[in-house]
């Protein structure tokens, strides 16, 4: 027994070395094809560029890291620790939360007026808000109802093309087209959802992906209607309650700048677009928060938790899923309509599967069902490329890996707390507390 430790140590070292060696070998094999050898056709035919130093470096790093890990308790112990505040969800009490909300809203409203807010910054903030709105919309489907929708971009496209066509063919303005776009997308959601919502979770995901691609291919090939790959251009810009943003009005009417006696500036239109999407996003937030507190919202969450129990309570799963699917679609359609108005030009290229994946990543990373999480994830996604060109290149690489790691470490997302949709007043019951089983 006394000789135990001295016998054991070499065995353990041996095992650690073996593990590290295996990890290094695997790294070698994995890194040779793409890191070590690069196809380089700059000289015409397939030339090759070799980067042995990269491979060697990686192998050494992995070998050492694995050794260190073994000494410090293995991979299992190597988990990031999240602040405990995040775990329970950020639950701020009324005085603080009210002030905080007011502050954020105030900042959001004042932002375009700030001196540093140029064309570029406002544009960035606008696309950030589009992603926030899309994230909140998809959150109904994925986060609340637990339906993995990989074709959400189809509804975004439906909204955009509805406005694009209405505007170019019938000259219908943004404000009238907005509800129509939402309606069109919701209808599409109903039509697509009805046959497929009975499917199991993973099959549903693949079928929605199929729908998304079908819609994109149709947009790409039905040139008579959609303009094919060239898309639709010359889509009407949203006016300020009927007043256009222009130096001079087309038919001699008033313009926005004339009315307010301001010198004409293209920034006005951008700022207005920003306010429009801000309003749409806030509307989405209010709408979804409200829904969550209604029976339908609770039914969505119940369905996510246990479909069989829902059936036993007399809930009709198909109808409940359909409402989630079509309401999510409607919000996507509204965002799409705005997108078309902002760009003035749309083409199928904006509505690929990658776009669906980005929106899904925002929802998953932020925390399914959590609205603050979506904001943070969208900010990271839109903000990351601003840190430099290389960040822009690595964005999706990082997002892909982050989705894997978040599923392993924190399947609920970065902010995973859930606040109850309703709280009971317990003051009456405190006296007759239950007998808690020991």
């Amino acid at each position, binding site marked *: 027994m006394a000789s135990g430790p001295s016998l054991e140590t070499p065995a353990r070292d041996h095992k650690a070395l073996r593990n590290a060696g295996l990890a290094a070998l695997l790294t070698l*094999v994995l890194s040779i094809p*793409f890191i070590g050898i690069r196809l380089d056709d700059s000289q015409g035919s397939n030339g090759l560029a070799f980067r042995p130093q990269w491979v060697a470096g990686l192998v050494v790093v992995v070998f050492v890291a694995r050794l260190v890990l073994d000494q410090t308790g293995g991979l299992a112990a190597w988990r990031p620790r999240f602040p405990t505040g995040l775990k329970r969800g950020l639950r701020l009490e009324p005085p603080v939360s009210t002030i905080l909300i007011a502050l954020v809203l105030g900042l959001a409203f004042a932002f375009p007026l700030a001196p540093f807010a140029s064309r570029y910054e406002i544009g960035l903030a606008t696309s950030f808000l589009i992603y926030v709105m899309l994230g909140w919309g998809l959150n109904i489907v994925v986060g609340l109802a637990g339906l993995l929708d990989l074709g959400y971009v189809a509804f975004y496209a439906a909204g955009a093309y509805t406005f694009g066509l209405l505007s170019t063919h019938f000259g219908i303005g943004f404000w009238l087209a907005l509800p129509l776009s939402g309606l069109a997308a919701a209808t599409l959601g109903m039509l697509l959802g009805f046959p497929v919502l009975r499917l199991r979770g993973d099959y549903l995901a693949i079928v929605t992906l199929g729908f998304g691609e079908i819609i994109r291919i149709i947009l790409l090939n039905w040139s008579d209607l959609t303009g094919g790959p060239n898309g639709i251009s010359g889509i009407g810009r949203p006016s300020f309650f009927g007043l256009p943003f222009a130096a001079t009005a087309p038919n001699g009417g008033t313009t926005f700048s004339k009315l307010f006696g301001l010198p004409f500036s293209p920034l006005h239109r951008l700022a207005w677009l920003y306010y429009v999407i801000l309003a749409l996003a806030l509307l989405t937030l209010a709408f979804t928060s409200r829904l969550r507190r209604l029976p339908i919202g609770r039914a969505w969450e119940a369905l996510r938790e246990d479909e069989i129990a829902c059936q036993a309570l007399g809930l009709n799963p198909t109808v409940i899923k359909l409402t989630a699917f079509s309401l999510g679609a409607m919000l996507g359609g509204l965002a799409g309509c705005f997108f078309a108005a902002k760009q003035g030009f749309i083409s199928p290229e904006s509505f690929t599967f990658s776009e669906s994946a980005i929106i899904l990543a925002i929802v998953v990373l932020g925390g399914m069902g959590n609205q603050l999480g979506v904001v943070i994830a969208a900010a990271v996604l839109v903000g990351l490329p601003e840190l430099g060109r290389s960040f822009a290149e690595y964005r999706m690489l990082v997002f892909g890996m982050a989705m894997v790691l978040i599923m392993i470490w924190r399947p609920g997302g970065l902010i995973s707390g859930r606040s109850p949709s309703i709280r009971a007043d317990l003051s009456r019951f405190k006296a007759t507390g239950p007998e808690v089983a020991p």
Partner: protein
Amino acid sequence: MAYFLQQTINGLTLGSIYGLIALGYTMVYGIVGMINFAHGEIYMIGAFVSLIAFAVLGLFGITWAPLAIVLVLLIAIVFTGAFGWAVERIAYRPLRGSFHLAPLISAIGMSIFLQNYVQLLQGARLRTLPALVSGGVTLFRENDFEVRISTIQIAIILLAGVLMAALTFLIEHTRLGRSQRACEQDMGMAGMIGINVDRTISLTFVIGAALAAGAGLMVTLYYGSVDFFIGFLAGVKAFTAAVLGGIGSIPGAMLGGILIGLVEAYWGGYVSGAYKDVSVFAVLILVLTVMPTGLLGKPHIQKV
């Protein structure tokens, strides 16, 4: 008639490739019950590795097509298999017992990662391979129309046949194959019999990746070009093939692959070239909604 025959030959060629990829989906689904969404990227990696391997062999002066193809197949299988193993180990194994959508979301993340990984390291441009194999056989002529099967098509169909036969032998008659089938039918019991379940699952991913590597090699030879994005569409089509054949069924995946290849070829040839991908997606949706057990699959009984 001649045109029909030509489309059939093209469809069989495509279908062989889809069938090989579909096997990876169906084996993984059978054993761990998840859609390995990153499998399309594994196939793309197989194609890229093949391309690189051809270039490297070129440096050594190995250009005699049959030898080069066999060597490249082996190289592609080794490297792609390693990727298949790593994907399971990193992205799926830690999630066993997690909530039901977690593996699929993780797989989507892995798919995004691998696509961008290859794009960043190899560039986004289409990579081409000079035609290695040329020639073919003219089967017959009808008026002006020539029905041809190219040497490369023959090679693809043959190679796919050999790989499928090898897999069937492996599954039906070897110890590993029996372990895989045992894990598929009752994973808990398989462990109690003494089967190392984790290792069996890992090997299933490696085998799936090896078959995808074969498909990647074929597509490199057939089209002569590869880019980082080919995995997505091929992946969805192969998954459709697996579902059509009955997910979990190995002969089903092969049958489904061939059928999807034919559907695509006929649709492209007779209905509309632009909408040939739609035909496959339509099959996917139709099969899943109308007969989710597929042609050769087994019904799934929901337990209360």
